């Protein structure tokens, strides 16, 4: 915790966990999709399911999906903004087992038909935690600059990434790797101390083993 967590953050009300956190989850989903959202299915669980209307969690998630920043004043008008931009969405309550009380599941489809499914929790003070990515258990907050790489579980995949980051003189702060089965789908989450250049991202994306490379910048 630092001084600007006490005097701050600047945010759109009314609730850091129900509004600011919800907006962040929408924004992370938009980043993971990597393109404009055409259609979104939003499922609210727990406290979200009970209070999403009053807390504007729906408007916050939609605003985030539209790419609005957490402190953007257009957040309260995001439903109208979505209509303007032709983004369709559905919202419904759900009941999950063993999930954090403020959990949302978003299935977002992009302009090109690309799809991403994110399950994330708003864990307090506007912070979030992504628990599932495309039905695979993961765990990252996106609080720092984070590289999310979806890949196949093959020998050398991690070495390739760390080698390329080393060439670019970039330091890895933390790193977690998740996988479904041996040789199956896997995800790397790397928190970085600096922001990688587009060139590096492009070379990472050109590697056969990597199905998807996303950069989560500060939310």
């Amino acid at each position: 915790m630092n001084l600007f967590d006490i005097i701050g953050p600047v945010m759109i009300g009314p609730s850091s966990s129900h509004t600011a956190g919800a907006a962040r989850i929408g924004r992370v989903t938009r980043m993971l999709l990597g393109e404009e959202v055409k259609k979104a299915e939003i499922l609210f669980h727990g406290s979200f399911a009970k209070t999403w209307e009053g807390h504007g969690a729906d408007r916050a998630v939609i605003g985030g999906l539209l790419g609005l920043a957490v402190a953007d004043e257009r957040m309260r008008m995001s439903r109208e903004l979505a209509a303007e931009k032709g983004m369709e969405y559905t919202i419904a309550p759900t009941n999950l087992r063993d999930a954090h009380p403020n959990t949302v599941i978003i299935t977002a489809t992009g302009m090109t038909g690309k799809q991403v499914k994110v399950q994330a929790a708003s864990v307090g003070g506007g912070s979030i935690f992504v628990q599932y990515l495309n039905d695979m258990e993961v765990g990252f907050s996106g609080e720092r600059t984070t590289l999310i790489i979806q890949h196949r579980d093959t020998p050398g995949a991690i070495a390739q990434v760390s080698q390329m980051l080393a060439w670019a003189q970039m330091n890895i702060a933390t790193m977690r790797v998740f996988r479904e089965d041996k040789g199956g789908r896997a995800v790397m989450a790397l928190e970085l101390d600096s922001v990688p250049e587009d060139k590096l991202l492009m070379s990472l994306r050109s590697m056969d083993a990597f199905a998807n490379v996303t950069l989560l910048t500060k939310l």
Partner: protein
Amino acid sequence: MDHSVKSLLQESDGNIVKAARDWQLQNDIHAKSAEELDAYMHEVLGVMRDSTVKGMRSDLRSVSGLTGGNAYKLMTAVEAGKTAGGSLLGRIAARALGVAEYNAAMGRIVAAPTAGACGILPAVLITLQEEYGYTDDQLVDALYVAGAFGLVIATRASISGAQGGCQAECGSAAAMAAAAIVYLKGGSAEQSADACSFALMNLMGLVCDPVKGLVEVPCVFRNVGAISVALTAADMALSGIVCPIPCDEVIDAMRQVGDAMPSSLRETGEGGCAGCPSMCR
């Protein structure tokens, strides 16, 4: 600095503003210079000021429709001389209500320390500036003082209603504001600590009981009560009254009270005001 008021007073050598700035420079990896921190704090102050204006609209309504427009009523009554508490208290009260209602209406606010208690610091600072002519630089310094005390409270106790009840949110904000008022009025660092203690004492045990789980009732009205606590706590300290209990012990007591609070009174929307029959329909 962040672990106790005692060390804050010792290490700062009377200059809490400098201590807070230095602490942030050491502990925030993104912080590059004191000028940069000050620039950000000025931005924060700008958002606070803006929210005191926008919260005053007569047609303001929250998403649920439970609150909004009350700050306008209060300010109008204060300006017409219809209230009992005088102009300064009335204006601070109206602005605290306004910012809190603006938050409920999905307005842009500064969580200080939380969104639920966001009306207290802006209302106090902006109105004292109006009354006594403080510069923005002075208000920014006052925010550092408030932040330093808030940091100790957050470290030793809590600033989360779900964890410590409303004493942790409106209570902490009132304590931070009281310390800031003392600073602006030229009091000593020790007097800021006393003001912080007096405010916490007065709001100790306050439960978090949001109706329908929303940050509205009683939250927005409690922001108003908290400003009167902040103001009177600061005045006691400024007059030279010394709090018999050290500030750190008051903060620790607040933590213990929070721990002893049943879950129904910690932001679950079950007990207290939230449990009132007419609010459960």
